[in-house]
């Protein structure tokens, strides 16, 4: 299929449709409303389910219900709306049903603003809801990757019967880039829904989907099983991209929009003679910590750049375990760090670790 100019939000929605999405439940919120609007037009055309819910609380529980019934389902929101969904994330994780949620992140805390931000890293990666669980968290940095990861999100959700969060900052949602859509996958017919799904106990024992396990040992057994699954995901699903790391003395770590901004920084820094590489995590959980630890043996220092007050940098430090200095540069509440602010930070780091410019 030829490349077309796609707006990020519409591309995300269309990619989900191509991936066999059966139902979308959601609530409007800037800057993700175009996702919902695209679904509102396309899904009914295709005979699939679109429903504008009364709240994000209702949306995620509709998703929970449809997922229990064995359908491919998703919702989409932006930061304040995602906070409202956290109850549902926890139930979905414990019940082990597959679901996909996108967060087109905006400035916060509170009502914040509608500018792009990455302030929800902790929420997505570390505190998605009450209890012990993680979501798989995918973070694209361009429109093509957003399309590809959206398709992957459904496959991972079903493979591991888990919740997958897709986080993009508002600028990826609003920007346009040439991109190629995958071919349309057929929607799975209802009779092919998973054997654990609630499809009516016809000729079989009833299926029960619950997150209630009374008794300490019962609940612990469930937790042990969930943790084993998470370890499996950590083993199989870590994804990242590297740029010019082979000979790098300094390493940038950044994801999403600022991840691609750092591609420009690598180019400009190398023009100045600084041997800089970039590692861009694509899965924020599971985090590419092992690879960062390996690179920490090679480089003299690491600069993490984020559109927040310094969240992912904690995971970078946990991975690096003091092997080299880890510094941070970030902007909060909307501004996107640009190359001319990041370069001086790299120069500072270079001076700190005693590097020279060639």
């Amino acid at each position, binding site marked *: 299929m030829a490349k077309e100019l796609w707006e990020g939000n519409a591309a995300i929605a269309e990619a989900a449709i191509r991936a066999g999405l059966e139902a979308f439940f959601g609530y409007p919120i800037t800057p993700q409303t175009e996702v919902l609007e695209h679904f509102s037009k396309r899904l009914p055309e295709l005979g699939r389910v679109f429903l504008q819910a009364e709240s994000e609380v209702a*949306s995620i*529980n509709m998703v*929970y219900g449809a997922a*229990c019934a064995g359908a491919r389902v998703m919702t989409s929101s932006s930061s304040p709306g995602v906070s409202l969904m956290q109850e549902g994330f926890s*139930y979905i994780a414990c019940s082990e049903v597959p679901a996909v949620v996108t967060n087109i992140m905006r400035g916060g805390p509170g009502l914040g603003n509608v500018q792009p931000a990455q302030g929800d890293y902790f929420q997505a990666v570390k505190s998605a809801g009450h209890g012990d669980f993680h979501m798989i968290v995918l973070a694209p940095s361009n429109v093509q990757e957003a399309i590809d990861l959206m398709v992957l999100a459904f496959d991972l959700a079903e493979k591991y019967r888990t919740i997958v969060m897709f986080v993009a900052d508002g600028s990826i949602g609003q920007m346009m880039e040439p991109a190629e859509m995958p071919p349309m996958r057929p929607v799975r017919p209802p009779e092919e829904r998973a054997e654990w799904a609630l*499809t009516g106990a016809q000729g079989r024992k009833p299926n029960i989907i619950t997150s209630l396990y009374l008794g300490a040992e019962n609940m612990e057994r469930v937790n042990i099983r969930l943790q084993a699954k998470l370890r499996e995901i950590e083993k199989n699903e870590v994804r990242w991209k590297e740029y010019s790391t082979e000979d790098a003395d300094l390493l940038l770590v950044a994801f999403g929009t600022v991840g691609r901004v750092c591609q420009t920084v690598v180019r400009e820094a190398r023009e100045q003679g600084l041997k800089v590489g970039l590692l861009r995590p694509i899965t924020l959980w599971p985090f590419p910590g092992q690879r960062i630890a390996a690179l920490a043996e090679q480089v003299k220092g690491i600069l993490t750049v984020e559109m927040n007050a310094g969240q992912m940098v904690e995971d970078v430090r946990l991975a690096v375990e003091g092997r080299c200095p880890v510094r941070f540069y970030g902007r909060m509440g909307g501004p996107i760090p640009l190359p001319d602010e990041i370069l001086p930070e790299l120069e500072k780091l270079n001076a700190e670790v005693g590097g020279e410019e060639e």
Partner: protein
Amino acid sequence: MAVEIPEDMELVYSYPESLTKVRTHYCPGCTHGVVHRLIAEVLDELGVRERTIGIAPVGCSVLAYYYFNMDFAEAAHGRAPAMATGIKRVSPDKVVFTYQGDGDLAAIGTAEIIHAANRGELFTTIFVNNAIYGMTGGQMAPTTLPGQVTTSSPTGRNVQTAGWPIRMAELLAELPGVAYVTRQSVLDVPAIRKAKKAIKLAFQTQLAGLGFSMVEILSTCNTNWHMTPVEALEWAKEHMVDYFPLGDTKMTDAVRALKEGK
């Protein structure tokens, strides 16, 4: 288990197939068991057990999925109508019902029930109203009567500060998407028989695709009311029925035709 019936005898009672043969955790004297049984009999009579999906609430009936012999999901507190919406929209050929208590439906889940009803979602809600939070140990519910003593209204519900009990059957009756809403009770045998008929009509409303249906059922909580089961039934008849009058609050013409056609 097929039981052989001698020729000169007639089978007048059997265990509903829609119930599992386990002991419930409900307190002695609790009316949840009666309501479960009525739903099970109706689903058996309609022959839909194998395509029914139930949704349990948070509250005393949180474990309802152990007692019904059919596919079941357990919802977050108050969210059963949203879950039911999700299930029914992707499985329109299934029979879907929520089983909810007063805290679940009329407090924390008010938004979900109102909007599901307003959209005319094609599922059935069984709303068990016993004017108290049972599972957490007897706190004030949205349906607790004025002056009623609970562990969180120790001097009696003061409507000046705690507001008035909510009449959900009347409230939902206002919504155009609602096809059938009625308030029944399980406080004596005639009432139980009427309640069963209402439950059956509610499920028939769903099967006919006529709109949202709900049966509110006045019930008791002898444990947290600190009464004997019989005292509790009498107390409910004396006090609850005044504030929560029995009868249909909404029946569209289509539902009436369905009822009279039977």
